């Protein structure tokens, strides 16, 4: 189907975009359009006005932060980000994970800010933002505010932005040099929406896990740190985490289930992706080699 009719404002600046968003409560932002346009084509949304920010230069740019982290503008396209040397240097987990987003042609238009704002429960960017404890930089009529990633994703396809606000970019703190990082997702075909995905940051000493941060997505409404998992892993060798992980996982009843996977399958997939992400991360951790 074709999109319903709308008016279009091609914004030249963040200020102009905010004005247009505020002027009409049914106005919606369009960035890469790779999630929005299918929704319009399926008539799942019928905004009266599209505020196009593709030409807003303030939203561009990837900047190495003085603290060793990375600042990424909302309009940076996934492919463009993958081509930045700063990404491989400073955020190798992001570099590893981005190719899982859809397909190459989609990544050529899809933007970081759009992926964050869309808050897809199976989205790689929401998971990365939460795992890496990023901060979302939000433009508002009063200058701006910052929202921690874990507070930004409120529910499926629901973010913490108010009316007349937009994502300006994300700041990712520096990654620890001793922690290993890993990501794994399961989908029916390469490029499909993930049925389940997990990211992990793991530290290892003398062959045993000393700390782990694990975030799960796809089987949960928002990217989720399962609070029982990290303590269950500490003290175990990475190759022996199946049992502690299985014991620490919530029961099947805690998973909602959907058209693609009933709750038991979601629980199983969740365990699988977490285990693989943790083991990948452990293998990359400094000191992973057994003396």
């Amino acid at each position, binding site marked *: 189907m074709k999109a*319903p*009719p709308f008016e279009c404002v091609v914004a030249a600046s963040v200020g102009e975009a905010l004005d247009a968003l505020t002027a009409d409560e049914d106005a919606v932002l369009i960035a890469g359009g790779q999630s929005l*346009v299918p929704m319009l*084509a399926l008539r799942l949304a019928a905004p009266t006005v*599209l505020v196009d920010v593709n030409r807003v230069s303030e939203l561009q740019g990837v900047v190495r932060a003085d603290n060793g982290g990375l600042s990424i503008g909302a309009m940076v396209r996934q492919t463009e980000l993958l081509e930045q040397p700063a990404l491989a240097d400073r955020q190798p987990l992001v570099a590893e994970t981005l190719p899982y987003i859809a397909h190459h*042609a989609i990544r050529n238009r899809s933007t970081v800010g759009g992926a964050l704002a869309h808050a897809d429960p199976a989205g790689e960017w929401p998971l990365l933002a939460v795992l890496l404890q990023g901060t979302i930089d939000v433009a508002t009529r009063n200058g701006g505010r910052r929202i921690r990633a874990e507070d930004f994703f409120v529910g499926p396809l629901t973010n913490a932005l108010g009316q007349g606000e937009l994502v300006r970019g994300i700041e990712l703190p520096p990654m620890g040099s001793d922690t290993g990082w890993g990501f794994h997702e399961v989908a029916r075909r*390469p490029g499909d929406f993930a049925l389940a995905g997990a990211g992990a940051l793991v530290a290892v000493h003398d062959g045993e896990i000393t700390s782990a941060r694990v975030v799960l997505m796809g089987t949960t409404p928002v990217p989720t740190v399962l609070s029982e998992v990290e303590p269950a892993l500490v003290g175990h060798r990475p190759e022996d985490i199946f049992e502690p992980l299985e014991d620490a996982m919530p029961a099947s009843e805690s998973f909602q289930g959907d058209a693609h996977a009933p709750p038991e399958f979601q629980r199983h997939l969740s365990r699988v992706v977490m285990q693989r992400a943790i083991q990948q991360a452990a293998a990359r951790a400094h000191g992973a080699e057994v003396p």
Partner: protein
Amino acid sequence: MNDTTMQVNMTVNGESIEIAVAPRTTLADLLRGPLGLTGTHLGCEQGVCGACTVLLEGAPVRSCLLFAYQADGAEVRTIEGLAEDGELHPLQELFLEKRAFQCGFCTPGILMGLVGKPQGLDREGIRDYLGGFVCRCTGYEPILAAAEAYVAQSEDERPKDGE
């Protein structure tokens, strides 16, 4: 029906185009309708099937997920712009040789997706890359064979950037 139109200028297969479009007219609809370039196909209109893939500033994009006004000022290349002066592009020659198409519905999208050899595509990456294109006829093997042969062609034999 919404009457507002937007004026867009773009280059399509080397030709300058100036036209008024409704905001919601997709690039695919512009190409196939007013411009008569029906080689770009519409399979799903959701970005999944890849049949609508064209080159925007040399990079593959889903033309069903771009509004035509967004291509203002850009260079667009479609399947009609692949052969030059009646000479098939080497990738097209390989598709013929390997019998990499049957009904041809998915073919233009795959050709435009492959022609620029995006991301330094190599033999391992091709199978995953073709996951972005739905083909119902061939079972993919002959497409894979043509794509692998294309990737294997030496740098100086192959024209740059899908020329």
